[in-house]
């Protein structure tokens, strides 16, 4: 214990009190997303994942530019080359530069994934929101439709569609989105149902706020977290589905490349030239793992329950 006997007497005078100070908030003002960003930054794995994803994304966009080779240009004098200074990742059975093909393939895979995710968001959010807001019989019918869709294995629908429609990027995107939005619709519906009975929405109704504003200002912003997080999990699963379709031979066709096409090619010569499989495989694994870790990180960062 310190000795307080020698404290100067003037300390025992009345202190100046500023009444406003009692309501003062010391912390800097943060929006919910800024707050989430601060939390995300503390999650090292998520930040590393984000960094890797940005890197992969940049390579996918600009990678082919740095390479002096075209992804589709064959060179029958230099087939099956091992990685070298000429061809960083080697060449394939037609002598095409693997470096250029991998980043072109990544670009296509990401494009398909993002497009599928956007369609998911558009259809899923609309469907879920309408279902939750309409309620009653409309909601019941819409939910039964979802249950039927969930009941049919999605892979079968996708494969059937791919056989009927002309091959191409658009077909893959549409085929995957036909069932992909169901999850999003369910999550959005659950979230909006929960929000609808929250006191701040009741308050808005009592204040005479119209439905359009209630949806735009109260319901949608508070559903953003759920949408963002779910998208983070949709993207890798779309990439994986595309790779799977290409791998079984009903996806994209040569000379176009996606990660799935590349893996399929590499797999056929796995014994002699494993590098043709390993590099695209590494890229796809990185994308999948990083999106999952980032998705988890975002969920922790944006979850309001964690916030005091």
């Amino acid at each position, binding site marked *: 214990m310190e000795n307080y006997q020698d404290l100067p*007497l003037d300390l025992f005078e009345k*202190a100046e009190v500023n009444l406003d100070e009692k309501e003062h908030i010391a912390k800097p003002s943060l929006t919910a997303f800024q707050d989430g960003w601060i939390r995300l930054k503390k999650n090292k794995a998520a930040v590393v994942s984000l960094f890797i994803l940005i890197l992969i994304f940049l390579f996918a966009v600009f990678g082919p530019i740095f390479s002096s080779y075209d992804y589709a240009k064959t060179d029958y004098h230099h087939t099956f080359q091992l990685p070298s200074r000429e061809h960083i990742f080697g060449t394939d059975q037609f002598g095409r530069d693997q470096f250029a093909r991998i980043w072109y393939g990544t670009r296509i895979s990401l494009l398909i994934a993002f497009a599928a995710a956007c369609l998911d968001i558009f259809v899923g959010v609309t469907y879920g929101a309408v279902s939750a807001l309409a309620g009653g019989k409309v909601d019941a019918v819409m939910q039964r439709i979802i249950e039927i869709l969930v009941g049919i294995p999605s892979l079968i629908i996708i494969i059937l569609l791919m056989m009927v429609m002309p091959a191409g990027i658009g077909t893959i995107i549409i085929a995957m989105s036909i069932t992909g939005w169901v999850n999003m619709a369910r999550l959005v519906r659950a979230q909006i149902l929960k929000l609808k009975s929250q006191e701040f929405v009741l308050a808005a109704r009592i204040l005479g706020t119209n439905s359009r504003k209630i949806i735009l200002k109260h319901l949608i912003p508070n559903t953003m977290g759920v949408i963002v997080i779910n998208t983070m999990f949709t993207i890798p699963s779309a990439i994986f589905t595309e790779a799977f379709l290409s791998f079984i031979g009903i996806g994209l066709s040569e000379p176009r490349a996606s990660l799935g096409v590349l893996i399929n090619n590499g797999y056929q010569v796995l014994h002699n030239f494993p590098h043709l499989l390993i590099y695209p495989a590494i890229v796809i694994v990185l994308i999948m793992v990083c999106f999952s870790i980032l998705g988890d990180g975002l969920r922790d960062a944006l979850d309001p329950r964690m916030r005091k």
Partner: protein
Amino acid sequence: MGKILQVENLHVEIKTELGRIQAVRGVSFDLDKKETVAIVGESGSGKTITVKSVMQLLPSTGSITEGSVRLEGKELTTLSEKEMLKIRGSDISMIFQDPMTSLNPTMTIGNQIIEVLKNHRKDLSRDEMKRRAIEIIDLVGISNPETRFKQYPHQLSGGMRQRIIIAIALACDPKVLIADEPTTALDVTIQAQILDLMKELQEKINTSIIIITHNLGVVANIADRVYVMYGGKIVENGSVEDIFYHPQHPYTKGLLAAVPKLHEKTDKLFTILGTPPDLTDPPKGCPFAARCSYTLKVCRQYPPSFTPFGNHHESACWLHDPRAKRMINEVRNAG
């Protein structure tokens, strides 16, 4: 001395993303045999963290940085988790605020009591345990204990669940029962039943009780002694009569004046302005200085030490210092 529990100079820190919360900052208290002590404070004052550190039940982000907790002279802070397991439930038990989440919904009431007995009373046979469990259900005032034994928590009302939780806590005749807001989630008429039950059981099995609450009525009803906590520190403690009839600390006085009296007509309630301090960056001096009506310059810079008022009644406030004469007069004039 017959002190059953002694806590000295306890400091607890909790790590969060927003920084380290110094939730408990030098708390000392003790508990006599068969005594009921209440710890009163607002949310965030550190009262729950204090008793959780007694039980060694802090969240993984929390740690005791200083101080000691002794149960009948035995230091608890240095015990391993395994040794603590033996003490928890048999020597010290705890009941929590929410009767809905404290019971396992997939287990019968009887099995939940037997589970506790199994851990601590290995000498009993299965049949004896069952008999003992039914006995305890009966003890907490639930009719048809045999039927209740086989029922699941969702078949019971909130008040009845809280009785079962008390039954589980008391299954091994603990020396100390810690009750964290045991009646807050309950309705007034049920609250009265539970308080009566706790008093009755204390008589029967000679346990000591620490009750945490923010409800001053509950304190007046059940406590022998009271510790008032604010901003991670104890600001005043004394017998329940001293605290209610002769409060010394401005916070205690404010708290009592903020509660409307049923039998008196008050025009306006007394209010304590402002909000409790942020314990990630706790005030250097008295924790209450920012909200006190009689703040001195010294209050902001140095933490006050306890001034005794006789009969184990003490209060930590600079106003008790004779040097604060001028302010003391002002307080007196203000009534």
